[in-house]
């Protein structure tokens, strides 16, 4: 007797799912037969709004693209405008940007620790990592004036110089985090429940990787050493020494290990940045923002965010307003076609864990 498939709507109001998106699942028993995503719950039309704003005003919208990870977005905006306008960033500005980007990467991964474990029922991890992430937010607050939305990197450099004694605080926080990461390992990676729930679950088939445009930790979790920081070095990444961790399993477990290693690498990068931080200017001033005309042209720049490649395409037609701005998010390719293709055959209980490990960020998908 053939069993009848049942349709289950997962989301948009569902505590396990990151952001507001819905997955329509056809299940037999608790095995998924097919999946169809539905997004659009967070569409704010940023890019349309940016067409109405001038070249400076648009930057304030950038950090809202993906709320847990705002800095890569600011970075691509700044760099795309710099590329069209032919604007240089002072060396110190670049170093500060790298520091911010790496701190943001740690914060994102800490958020991910909480989400990944929350989706598997390990809530203690969330209490820890979100609490520890707050110390990084404290650093951000001191540096940029905002906890979540930093609005710090803008075309030409960064907005303010490092406050006095800031680097010491960063180092202290990093020391503390390193200590905590050991606790995380004990609680999470050594945990046999976590291992059993993640190993062999949510496998992204290696032969599908190119077809689906997979990027970031998902790609590295499939054993491919690809990272924009080394492929197309931006800011000062070519002067820094760090490793690109990869894993072979291509399942949630492999991606978790990649992310875990990335936090360690980020800490290593920040230490180097602080060592090498040059003195001098941190910002090359742009003209009066109300009359700032960017010459006609277009540019696509990319940055490696905690969830993978984030790109930004900006077009100017030689006026004070951008012609077009278009963001490419990591989640945009992962959370729709890739998710739909790997869900069949999985269990319902694993859906939110899979979504988490693919780096789903709903506000970034629909923008």
């Amino acid at each position, binding site marked *: 007797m053939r069993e009848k498939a049942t349709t289950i709507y997962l989301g948009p109001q569902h505590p396990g799912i990151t952001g507001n998106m819905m997955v329509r699942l056809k299940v037999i028993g608790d095995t998924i037969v097919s999946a*169809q995503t539905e997004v659009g719950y967070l569409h704010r039309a940023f890019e*349309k709004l940016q067409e*109405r704003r001038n070249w400076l005003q648009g930057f304030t919208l950038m950090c809202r693209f993906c709320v847990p990870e705002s800095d890569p977005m600011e970075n691509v905006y700044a760099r795309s405008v710099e590329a069209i306008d032919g604007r240089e960033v002072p060396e110190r500005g670049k170093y500060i940007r790298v520091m911010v980007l790496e701190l943001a990467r740690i914060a994102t991964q800490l958020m991910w620790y909480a989400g990944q474990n929350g989706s598997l029922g390990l809530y203690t991890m969330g209490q820890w990592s979100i609490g520890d992430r707050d110390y990084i937010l404290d650093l951000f607050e001191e540096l940029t004036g905002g906890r979540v939305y930093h609005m710090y990197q803008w075309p030409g450099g960064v907005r303010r110089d490092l406050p006095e004694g800031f680097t010491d605080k960063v180092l202290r926080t990093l020391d503390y985090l390193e200590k905590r990461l050991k606790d995380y390992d004990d609680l999470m990676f050594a945990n046999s429940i976590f291992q059993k729930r993640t190993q062999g679950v949510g496998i992204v088939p290696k032969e599908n990787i190119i077809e*689906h445009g997979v990027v970031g930790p998902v790609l590295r979790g499939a054993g491919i050493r690809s990272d924009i920081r080394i*492929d197309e070095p931006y800011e000062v990444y070519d002067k820094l020494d760090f490793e690109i961790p990869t894993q072979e399993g291509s399942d949630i477990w492999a991606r978790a290990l990649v992310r875990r290693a990335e936090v360690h690498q980020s800490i290593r990068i920040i230490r180097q940045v602080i060592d090498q931080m040059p003195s001098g200017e941190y910002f090359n001033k742009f003209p009066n923002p109300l009359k700032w005309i960017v010459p006609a042209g277009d540019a696509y720049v990319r940055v490696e965010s905690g969830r993978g490649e984030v790109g930004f395409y900006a077009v100017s037609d030689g006026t004070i307003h951008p012609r077009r701005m278009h963001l490419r998010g990591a989640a945009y390719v992962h959370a729709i076609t890739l998710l739909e293709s790997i869900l069949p055959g999985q269990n319902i209980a694993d859906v939110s864990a899979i979504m988490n490990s693919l780096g789903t960020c709903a506000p970034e998908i629909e923008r």
Partner: protein
Amino acid sequence: MKEIKDKMIAQIKAVFPEAVNKDYDGNRLDLTVNKEAVPSVLLYLKDSMGFRHLSHIAYVDWIEQGEFELVYILWSPLDKVKLYVHTRINRENPVIENIDMIWRQANTYEREIREMLGIEFTGLVAPDEFILEDWDDIPPFRKDFDTLEYVNRTFWHRPGREDAQDVRSTISERSGEEIPDFAKKYSR
């Protein structure tokens, strides 16, 4: 880098003589092709030239020229070259070939472009709606769609701010200055 790019251009031109290229500094390479040639160009680039990663499909509305522009941005992981493939589509009858059999993720982009710009992709299989629900206006990312006007029509702004004054007109009223109409477009 320069030699690699020159070699690439020569190779592309040998197969697609009508493609127009434009060179930039660094690892950027631009290519403009007819919309009919897009699938074959992309397939060739992917299979024979190492542009294995489709990074982005951007869309621009050039309303003054009556055209939409699609920009396929490809990345070659081996040669580290970023290739922009531009193509233009007439605004009157916007149809182009679907490419989601080359890269599956293009499906998402095409769904978005279909909804936001109104371009039809022949052969695209996907649900009708993507982001918007029950949308009954012109596609919102077209340049002739005025979002603020739509907001004023559909939503509310909180009352209580009507006493706002314009600095320029406050001063000109006080001093008796008459700003001619042709100058007003330069007022802020």
